[in-house]
């Protein structure tokens, strides 16, 4: 019986061959965490939707070139995290007041746990490694490879980020 990784490889193979149901399976398996990851870095629901969506656009664009022997999730997560960091940096540089996100029928925002709220105080780079470690479950070595950072940098960002979170409890 194929496990989740076996399923995922089969989905990637099927999607590359044009199977909409296999691509949909990849989407269902990965979109929720793509959204959560983006949200935890940018703390903006609309931007998180955009970022998760752009990551799947990138997936479709690059599907033919994707090495099916490699897992899909880390590749997608790397796109999401890098775009989310870029978005947060640009917003910080602008210091701009965003357009109101409230729309015609938008429900009041629910930001989740206290930890999620406290993470706003961290830099996007610190948020990113914490999310990759504690939401997505990557090891520091894997995070370093995915983000192209020295492992020591990942470890120090994790340590400092977690310390800052503790201080704010």
């Amino acid at each position, binding site marked *: 019986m194929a496990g989740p990784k076996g399923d995922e490889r089969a989905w990637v193979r099927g999607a590359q061959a044009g199977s909409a149901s296999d*691509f949909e399976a990849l989407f269902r398996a990965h*979109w929720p965490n793509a959204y959560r990851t983006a949200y935890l870095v940018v703390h903006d629901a*609309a931007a998180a939707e955009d970022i998760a969506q752009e990551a799947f656009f990138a997936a479709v664009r690059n599907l033919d070139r994707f090495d099916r022997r490699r897992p899909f999730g880390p590749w997608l997560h790397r796109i999401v995290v890098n775009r989310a960091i870029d978005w947060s940096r640009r917003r910080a540089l602008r210091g701009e007041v965003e*357009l109101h996100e409230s*729309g015609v029928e938008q429900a009041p*925002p629910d930001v989740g*746990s206290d930890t*999620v709220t406290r993470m706003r105080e961290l830099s996007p780079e610190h948020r990113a490694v914490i999310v990759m470690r504690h*939401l997505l479950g990557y090891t520091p070595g894997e995070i370093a490879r995915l983000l192209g950072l020295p492992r020591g940098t990942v470890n120090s960002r994790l340590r400092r980020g977690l310390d800052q979170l503790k201080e704010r409890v």
Partner: protein
Amino acid sequence: MRLDLDVPIPEGAQERAHRVAMAAFASYHPAPRRRAYWRPALAIAVVAAIAGVLASPPGRSVIQSIREAVGVKKAQRELFSLPAAGRLLVGSVRGPWVVGQNGSKRLLGAYREASWSPFGRFVVALRGDELVTMEPNGRVHWTLARPALELPAWGGRHADTRIAYLTRRKLRVVAGDGTGDAMRCAGGVAPVLPAWQPGSLSVLAVSAPNGRVQVYNVRDCRLILRTAPGAVPARLAWSSDGRLLLAVAPSALRVYDLRGRVVARDDPSDGTLDGDAAFLPGTHRVAVVRVHGAQSDVSILGSGETLFHVAGTLRQVVPSPDGRWLLLTWPAADQWVFVGTSGAHAIRAVSDIAGQFGGGSFPTVSGWIGK
């Protein structure tokens, strides 16, 4: 340390993303992995079969049915129904009308430049120096007064939307509930309806006065795409998956990808002009109206497939939401002509269009949106 990083997902967000992702995937074509030697032989056989059919009397009659469509003599005098699901928004001298699939028509009032919200739940229009949002039954939601208003365009998602508009030829953006109105990004823009990337709250295409097409992320004013200067397009439109952008000017039609590369083009010559063009929903196929002298052709760009030919000047091409029909507007004949895109060459025509929309000049179709 164990962290609780649970983030609730907004209601409907995954389904919105799912629709967009699946639409994007629908245009994905797997790269051929090995050469299939039987395919050329099959293609030759198919071409030969089609040639045989067209050479036969019934085949010739199909071609004739297109060529003899001049004037569309069997046009209905009234618009009894639309051939596909959805509603039309039609601009007339009396104001915008909402036309139901069953042919019902409702005049919204003395507004101009009306357009649909992304899912057809609302309409935005202008009245004097006011931008007005309303329901399709005419009930006004909110208004915003600004000088020299032009060209409102509504984009976004089910739960969150944005309206872009021009005031004194400057771009402004306001949220769908009327809050957060602000000048955005482009300094001066041409009077061309801005085009929101489907499903996005931030990606917007505008035209500069020198004809450059500029795509901005209006959230941070990052310029995503800028084309070379050229003819100012008459229309900007995105494919439904948001991957391609169409810019149509009479002398040049371009389809750009998100890196600004031209992926399809039409440069009519010898007195031919591109009158209008539109993506067929859910596809990357572009229906284009070419006008040469006193004749017009409607075809699918790059396919060599002519869907309709008339001795007259067609003005607009508006695809149905399911992409199976094109609404062609023909002011000189005072007709709308609905042409099927499926290859069956189905044609339905309705005459006395100006009269049905309050008289005066021939009306303009602002959009055909799904239910």
